[in-house]
């Protein structure tokens, strides 16, 4: 890198020039926020606070969407009513030392809305655990090595479900122990539903499960504090 380029990168808060290997699509939430800022009328562009993400009403000037790097957990014996068990892992190690995490939101996306499908009204149960201890050979964590974070039922109507995991993500960073999460989705305990269609068919509507991602907002102390100081002066 030429000296100028490395100094310019440094001023942009980047220690090195990124070299993406397999760049993927831009998450729609980021594109929307980018477009909204870009199309602000020039008269109040300078009013836009670059150190606050107004869309989530949190301090921050860096928004990242992490793709899930976990894997499905396949048990030998199908468990009663369980449709899906998946380990979720988001690699937050790219966050720089001087970045303060202010928000983390998990999104579970299904491939389509199911307002009109046969499974309308079928209720599922979702459990999300924080893994506190890695079990051997990636098998499901035992009760004592995971902490229940979310337990809720839902009807598969909406395309995606959102969960606030700010506390968990801050834990991961504070204690440098990011062992991921475990997601379980099962059919709710409606006996008739199981009797009539069979677990297989009811889980089929969950099979359109597309992917999970974690949106993380951080505040660069170096960039936002310095600019505050300059503005005050």
């Amino acid at each position: 890198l030429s000296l100028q380029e490395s100094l310019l990168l440094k001023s942009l808060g980047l220690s090195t020039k990124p070299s993406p290997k397999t760049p993927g699509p831009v998450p729609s939430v980021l594109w929307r926020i980018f477009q909204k800022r870009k199309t602000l009328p020039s008269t109040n562009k300078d009013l836009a606070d670059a150190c606050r993400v107004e869309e989530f009403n949190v301090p921050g000037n860096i928004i990242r969407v992490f793709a899930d790097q976990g894997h499905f957990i396949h048990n030998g014996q199908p468990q009663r009513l369980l449709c899906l068990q998946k380990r979720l892992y988001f690699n937050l190690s790219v966050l720089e030392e001087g970045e303060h995490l202010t928000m983390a939101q998990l999104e579970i996306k299904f491939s389509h809305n199911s307002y009109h499908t046969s499974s309308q009204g079928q209720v599922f149960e979702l459990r999300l655990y924080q893994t506190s201890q890695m079990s051997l050979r990636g098998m499901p964590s035992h009760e004592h090595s995971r902490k229940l974070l979310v337990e809720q039922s839902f009807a598969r109507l909406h395309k995606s479900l959102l969960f606030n995991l700010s506390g968990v993500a801050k834990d991961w960073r504070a204690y440098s122990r990011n062992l991921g999460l475990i997601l379980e989705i099962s059919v709710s305990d409606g006996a008739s539903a199981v009797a009539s269609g069979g677990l297989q068919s009811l889980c089929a509507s969950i099979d359109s499960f597309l992917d999970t991602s974690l949106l993380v907002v951080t505040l660069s102390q170096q960039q936002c504090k310095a600019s505050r100081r300059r503005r005050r002066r």
Partner: protein
Amino acid sequence: RSAYYPLVTPSNLCKPRRLYISFSDVGWENWIIAPQGYMANYCLGECPFPLTAELNSTNHAILQTMVHSLDPEGTPQPCCVPVRLSPISILYYDNDDNVVLRHYEDMVVDECGC
């Protein structure tokens, strides 16, 4: 592209001048997703005595131009600097192929002053 593009009326008074920064010119097009470049502008021009209102001057600048008019060799004219700036947002890939949206403050010169 740092060529000098005067706005509508060529003038040597302190005001913003157009400066377009093209990220592909600096070879960043493979990791910056958007924008491809942006209008950063810069300030250039004189701060002559007397300073008029549209030159966005500080009281000190008014004082300095007066002294400069009396003693041009001893005291320089005030500087022409940015007085109103606005942020830009950049979408880019990091080294782990994550898509990052980052807001940067004070990246566009909207107004200059003495």
